[in-house]
């Protein structure tokens, strides 16, 4: 069985925009989840769980590494292509 192709950034961006209920244009690689997209603690955990549902293993202890949309996509890409 082959692994599914990882999402392109545009698809990843659209998925996040949908999850966060924000305009896709705001979900730039440089956007910080907390300070730019205004995520509170519950929404932050939703993002982490969403990544987990996509098969991305991310221990909570490492959550602080994911601060921007770009961080999240990088982490996703590393895991998806591993």
């Amino acid at each position, binding site marked *: 069985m082959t692994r599914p192709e990882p999402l392109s950034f545009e698809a990843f961006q659209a998925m996040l925009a949908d999850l966060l209920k924000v305009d896709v244009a705001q979900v730039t690689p440089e956007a910080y989840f*907390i*300070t730019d997209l*205004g*995520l509170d*603690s519950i929404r*932050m955990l*939703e993002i982490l769980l969403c990544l987990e549902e996509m098969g991305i293993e991310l221990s909570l202890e490492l959550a*602080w590494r994911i*601060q921007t949309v770009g961080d999240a996509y990088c982490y996703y890409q590393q895991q998806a292509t591993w």
Partner: protein
Amino acid sequence: MGRIEIRDFDGDLEALSAMARDSWLEEYGEDTWPDLYRPALARHLFADVPDPRFLIGAYDGAKLVAFIANLPRIYRFNGETYKGVASCMMVAHKDYRGVVVYLIAECLRRNEEFGADFALMTLEKKHRSWFMFERYLKPNYRVEVLKTMFPILHAVDFERIVESENLKWYEVAAIKILGAHRPITAPSVSGAVRPYSDADLAEILVLTKRYSDQNSLVRTFDEKSLARRLHTEDVTSTVVYERGGTVAGFINFTIYDMVCKRGSNRWAWIDFLYWEGLSGKEKKALLAGLWEASREQDCIGILEWNKNYYAKGALFRSHFIPYPRFLELTAWIFDPALSLQGIDNAFEQVI
């Protein structure tokens, strides 16, 4: 605003206090909340912290935007000794609420480094952090609820409580019918109620150790930390019942500012108490001493959480009444062989 850095707290208690006040005033609105961040109280709580890694700040540049304390403590449970931490005082500036996820993550990492067996927390039911644990953390980690806690209280200055808690006429009437507004007066007893003095320390240490064999989860003290606990100017106080030249009982409390948009008022929260072996009259005399000590320190009320490590009948007979606010005493368990689920008795302060 940019990348958040999680690092050791820089020790600026004034900045912590200001950030916490802004955050909680916005969050609680008209309701009161206990100001755990008053610099004198925070200094007292942090005095036993041996290592800066136990106090964690989140910074946006030089600006403190969130904070959590992990206060290391030794507990006894079922005859064994455990390393625990009291994880408390978690707060985030209103524009940085999501940062608490980073703080919790860093706490987990540091607690593992420390070799903690568990972390104790009190979560206010239906509050944001409680929902976070309910929905996301309890299902994925070993997070156990020891017990639901509610406060019982007695007024010291009822008029100021009515104003501060914005009580309705029917709440005022109910409290008066139940008698929680009256002073607690001392009956005639053979012993003496008096303030704690340093000479009492060794005897009180022995009394606190008696709980180790009787209760489920018991915080243990060394002499130095107990001395601070029993008396720290403007923060903690203790009243003692002396019988036949020895300390037969004591009540220890902490002064909390209860804050809301209408202002701030002091309350005495009972923390550690020993009155096994005192008669009903002697317990009431000790409670009268507590009432007087609270009044002298400008507290408007006395509050106790149902920690259940001692018999509470004397409190109810002195007209302490329940108040509808609820906490969950919760533990994040790291020791795979340990479970604290459903424990009803905890000899520990609520912070």
